[in-house]
Structures are given as structure tokens and as C-alpha cells.
């Protein structure tokens, strides 16, 4: 199967997991949206030398992974795209930031480390904490998408009065992305069949290929939009719709407590040096 086909399949699978009727999926999208943004902000704001403290924040994604029954394997796959980028951003840290911040007891002595202590520079610590931050933020946003449908996210955005234009954009982009990918698939397949033994697409064909792709996806996007309009879509979401009730077993109080508990917990983990406290218990 081609890479593009796989990508389409991944997106479709993700959409399906988002639709499962489960507790995490039923939580009000606003709660999840808020928690995710809050969580990402906290993770990003962690001190770059505070490796353990950042690591401890993993408790939130771990919790959602378990309770929401989200496939960890799929989430890892997502990392493949992001991690190399984070790596590139952080790779120079160890070269510039050479101040020693800590020693690791190796427990044995070598000719290079006569006292058995490995010196760790600030650059390495900050490099690793950057990587961890990358992983955690990717996981957090992945978990949001994997447990909330795009329609629900848009609905909640409208609830907090984000302008209609923006919300509709979000919705359409999400719907068009598979369209675009399947056009890419068709065009590259047609190309490959007529250019056997060629790896990738020849440079001179790029221009016309991309042009065609653009035109065709625009045509298709037009029709999708027309089809939405024909079936009564007026560019808005039913924001009078009640989230809780007959088809949703979650309760307002339950979701609210979920929000409060996790906001509190994340804040505590950020403000109180829990990792040091736990660490000191063992030393």
C-alpha cells in the first residue's frame, strides 16, 4: 500500500476512534479543549533544566491513554513526524551549553571517569527536556483528536463565540484533507504507471503535477461544499444543542469535576517540585 493510502487510512481510523461511545469521548469538548491547551502551555513553560518535573507531567496523557483506550502504537507513529523536527531544534544545545549541572553516579570507575561520576552538561539536560516536551505536547493534542470528533470541537468553539468563519474553516480543512490526499494518490499513481522504474517524481514534472492537483482538489472541495449546502448546511453549527441528556451518559457535574481535578493536578505538578520530594524520600 502506498504511503498516501496509509495516511488516509490513519486519518479515517482516527476519526473512528473519536466516535467511540466512551466516557472520555463523551466529556464536553470544551473541557477537553481547555485542558489540552492548558496542559500544553504548562509543559512548554517548564524550566528547561527541570527534566524530572517535566517527565512527571506525563501522568495526564498516560491517564487518557488508559481510560480512553487510545492506541499507544498509533500515537507513537505520529511522533515520527514531529520528533525529528524537535531534534533539529534542540541538537545544538549540548554544544553551546556546556556548564555542568549534575553528576551521574555510574557505580564503577573507568580510565575516563576515575571517580565513577559522569558529568552532565546543561545542554544535554535541556536537549532531553525539549524532547520530552515535544513528546508530551504531541501526545496531548493527539489524544484530543482521538477522543473528540472535529464536529464536536467546532461546536464547542462556536459555543465560546469563536467567529463562524474561523470555525467553518477548521471544519472544512479537516474534511478536505482526505480529499487532497486521495487526489495526490491518484495523480502520483498515474504518474508512476507511466514512469516505471523512476524513484519519486521528476523535477520537471512537479510544476504541472502540483497545478493539476490544486485544480482538481479545488473542484472536489467545491462539490463537497455544495453538497453540504444542498443538505441545509448554512455555515453554522447548532449551538442551541444540549451536550448532556438522552444520548450522553456523562453529566455536567462529572465533566466539571474532571476539569477541576486535572487543572488542579497539573498546576500542583507545575508549582510544587513533586519530583524532588519523591526523589528525596529515596535518598
Amino acid at each position, binding site marked *: 500500500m502506498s504511503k498516501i493510502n496509509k495516511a*488516509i487510512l490513519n486519518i*479515517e481510523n482516527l*476519526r*473512528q476512534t473519536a*466516535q467511540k461511545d466512551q466516557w472520555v469521548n463523551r466529556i464536553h469538548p470544551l473541557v477537553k479543549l481547555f485542558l489540552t491547551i492548558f496542559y500544553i502551555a504548562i509543559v512548554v513553560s517548564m524550566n528547561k533544566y527541570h527534566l524530572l518535573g517535566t517527565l512527571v507531567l506525563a501522568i495526564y496523557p498516560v491517564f487518557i491513554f488508559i481510560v480512553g483506550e487510545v492506541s499507544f502504537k498509533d500515537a507513537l507513529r505520529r511522533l515520527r513526524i514531529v520528533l525529528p523536527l524537535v531534534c533539529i531544534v534542540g541538537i545544538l544545545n549540548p554544544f553551546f551549553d556546556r556548564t555542568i549541572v549534575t553528576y551521574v553516579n555510574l557505580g564503577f570507575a573507568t580510565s575516563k571517569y576515575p571517580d565513577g561520576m559522569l558529568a552532565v552538561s546543561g545542554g544535554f539536560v535541556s536537549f532531553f527536556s525539549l524532547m520530552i516536551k515535544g513528546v508530551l505536547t504531541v501526545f496531548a493534542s493527539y489524544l484530543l483528536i482521538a477522543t473528540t*470528533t472535529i464536529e464536536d470541537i467546532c461546536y464547542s468553539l462556536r459555543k465560546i463565540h469563536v467567529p463562524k468563519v474561523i470555525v467553518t474553516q477548521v471544519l472544512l480543512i479537516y*474534511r478536505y484533507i*482526505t*480529499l487532497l490526499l*486521495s487526489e495526490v494518490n491518484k495523480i502520483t499513481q498515474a504518474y508512476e504507471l507511466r514512469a516505471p522504474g523512476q524513484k519519486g517524481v521528476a523535477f520537471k514534472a512537479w510544476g504541472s503535477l502540483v497545478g493539476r492537483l490544486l485544480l482538481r482538489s479545488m473542484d*472536489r472541495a467545491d*462539490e*463537497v461544499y*455544495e*453538497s*453540504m*449546502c*444542498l*443538505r*441545509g*448546511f*448554512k455555515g453554522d453549527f*447548532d449551538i442551541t444543542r444540549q451536550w448532556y441528556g*438522552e*444520548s450522553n451518559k456523562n453529566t455536567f457535574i462529572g465533566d466539571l469535576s474532571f476539569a477541576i481535578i486535572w487543572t488542579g493536578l497539573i498546576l500542583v505538578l507545575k508549582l510544587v517540585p513533586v519530583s524532588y520530594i519523591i526523589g528525596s524520600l529515596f535518598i
Partner: protein
Amino acid sequence: MSHIHIDVENVNFSYLKDKPILKDITFQAKENDSIGIIGANGVGKSTLLKLLVGLNADFSGSIRVEEIPLERKTLSKIREKIGYVFQDSDNQLFMTTVYQDVAFGPENYGLPKDEVEKRVEDALNKVKIPYLIDKPVYQLSGGEKKLVAIATILSMNPDIILMDEPSVSLDPKNRRNLINILNEFDHLKIISSHDLDFIWDTTSRVILMSEGRIVADGPTEEILRDEALLDRYGLEKPLSLTERNN
């Protein structure tokens, strides 16, 4: 007496300024008509159908649907009455599961949840695919997609159905199935196609188009048997008729 459902008078239309696509189109369609619009590729069949649901604006002349003139402000009312099935089902279906897609229309018109569910079930039963209800759309075959696309409009209980080239990419079994479904639908339907066998099996009246004009309008029996006429406009007599005559 049957009501006039669609009334098109002296309609002209062009996408680009000096390249008219539809020229002086006039016809009326009654409540129980089943009309085939035929003509070679590019004569403007799709354009005409899209015009009727207000997807192509800026035409001149008048279009009335159940007495309501087609204008910007009547669009939503008219679209509630007309179901339009796109040629390419892939572009018509945009939700994740069959249920969601079929429910999209009724939900947008603000029906209560149990009514929406009932509409979805009814629509899927009509096209004989109730078992697909929870399937993801991307896993469907071409024929199934076409049937789901039809269900998405049946769920809105339209008075009129427009279909653009419905038989393209269907295998014989799906094609036969679709013919039966269309023949069960007893409201006004207009079907564009260059598949004349399909038109023969599903319609009682034919409008023949050429270069943006209506060149013939009459009973299917008559027009599809008129080899000279069809030949003049680049079409071939339905296969089933040729066989029968030989």
C-alpha cells in the same frame, strides 16, 4: 390534474462571459414525471441540473420550483424540496460513517433526534442497504457509495430527485438495483445520462440536448427509437432495443 413542479422558461447561462453554455432552455416538469436528459458529453446536462438547485447562479430567464421562483432568498426552501445526487459520490459523502452522512441533512433542518434516526433507517431501507448503517464511508465500494448518496437525499423526503449520471461506474447488479429503486420512487425525477439503456429503463420522457439547446422533448419510447435523430446528435440507440429489433 397533476401539478407543475418545475417550470423553466427561456433560461440562458454561461460560466464565462462570452461562452454561453445553456441557450434558451424552456420546459416544464409535472409531479409524477420521470425525465431523462440525454446528450453527448459537454452539452450542458450537468450544468442544467445544477442550475435547478441554485448551484449555478447568474442565469437569465426564470426558474420556478413548486411555484417558488428560484432566487437567493428562496434557496433554502427550494433545496428542502429537491434532492440532488452528484455524479461523483465521493464528493457528496463527507462524514465518517454512513449513519452520520445520511443524518446530516435532517439534522441541519433541525429535526428531533428520534425523527432523524427514523429518517435514516427509512432511507437506507429504501435503497436496500440497512446493514451498512454503521460502516465507515471510506470502506464502501463504488456502488454502495452511490446508494448511500441516494439515501442522503431520500432522508430529507424530497419531492423531486435530480441525478447526474447515476449509472456511471456501477456493475450490472448494482445498476439493476438502482433502476428498481428509481422506479419505486414515485415523485418527480430528472436523470441526466448518456447511458440510454438506463434512461430507457427508468424514464417515460426524454429531453435531448445539443450544444446547450433542447433539440427534442417527448416520450422516451419515441425519441429513443428514432435512430436518425439520435445519430444526428452523437448518440446511439439503446442496446436493448437494437437486440430486440434484430
